[in-house]
């Protein structure tokens, strides 16, 4: 009885294996490309999941599109541009660096700089009061 229980528990671990389709590609490089590109594209339905992970119907369709393009020999950039053309920049997990997003990319460094600057000024101003 215990054995049965343990066996069932063991089986339950496999329940999390997502039922994905099989995409057969003839070279290891292409397989890597497929994995890489689908991980870099966002699923627009389940928006924190990548195309690689999402079980949504749209994700399945788009994985199929990516598969066709990888098979055909398109580059990473061509595939991503295909998606951006249809769904906009949001389909990428990493926003592109252009005039709209300079602030987004630069803000963390900028804020860090200001905070550091403030810290410097504060300690300089109070150097006679701080410690000994």
């Amino acid at each position, binding site marked *: 009885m215990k054995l049965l229980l343990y066996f069932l528990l063991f089986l339950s671990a496999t329940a999390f294996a997502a039922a994905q389709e099989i995409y057969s590609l003839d070279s290891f490089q292409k397989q890597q490309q497929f994995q890489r590109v689908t991980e870099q594209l966002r699923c*627009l339905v389940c928006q924190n999941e990548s195309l690689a992970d999402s079980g949504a119907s*749209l994700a399945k369709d788009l994985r199929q599109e990516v598969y066709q393009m990888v098979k055909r020999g398109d580059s990473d950039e061509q595939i991503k541009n295909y998606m951006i053309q*249809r*769904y*906009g920049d949001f389909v990428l997990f990493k926003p592109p660096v252009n005039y709209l997003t300079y602030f987004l990319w630069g803000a963390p460094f900028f804020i860090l700089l200001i905070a550091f600057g403030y810290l410097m000024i504060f300690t300089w101003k109070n150097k006679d009061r701080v410690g000994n």
Partner: protein
Amino acid sequence: MRYSIPVVLFTIIAIFLWKGLGQDPHKIPSALLNKPIPAFDYPTLSEQRFTNQKFLGHISLLNVWSTWCPTCWSEHAELMHIAKHSKITLYGLDYKDDKVKAQKWLDKFGNPYQEVVFDDKGLLAVDLGVYGTPETFLIDEKGVVRYKHVGPITREIWNAKILPEIAKLSR
């Protein structure tokens, strides 16, 4: 006075976060905005031919729907109303659906569409940047996408969001 800087910083951050709460990440603006509808040639539910040329010469609405989408059912009454009272041509795009089911559904509940493009594999929808039904495109007489609404169209949305966009085109 000592705490004024943190208070100011807090207020600024709070304002941004508050605004952020009001945004819906699922309402992604159309990548086709102010771009022409991509060229396509698909059959309709009644086996006629439908190409992007159909959009030329008049203002159109293209509503993406399917029989398996419950939100689309709720929108249907409003679409019937629009078809009846508006001069705008309303086309449908039946997304990843069963042709027989779709026709039966329209026969039973009423057909607001002038014509219904049948996209059984969803490939045309991908070209249009559709990610969740129902979605409705507003297309001008040159075949250019001028507005897209994601989600069902209610009376309020029709009056507040879509009619103003149509008015812009008619000017």
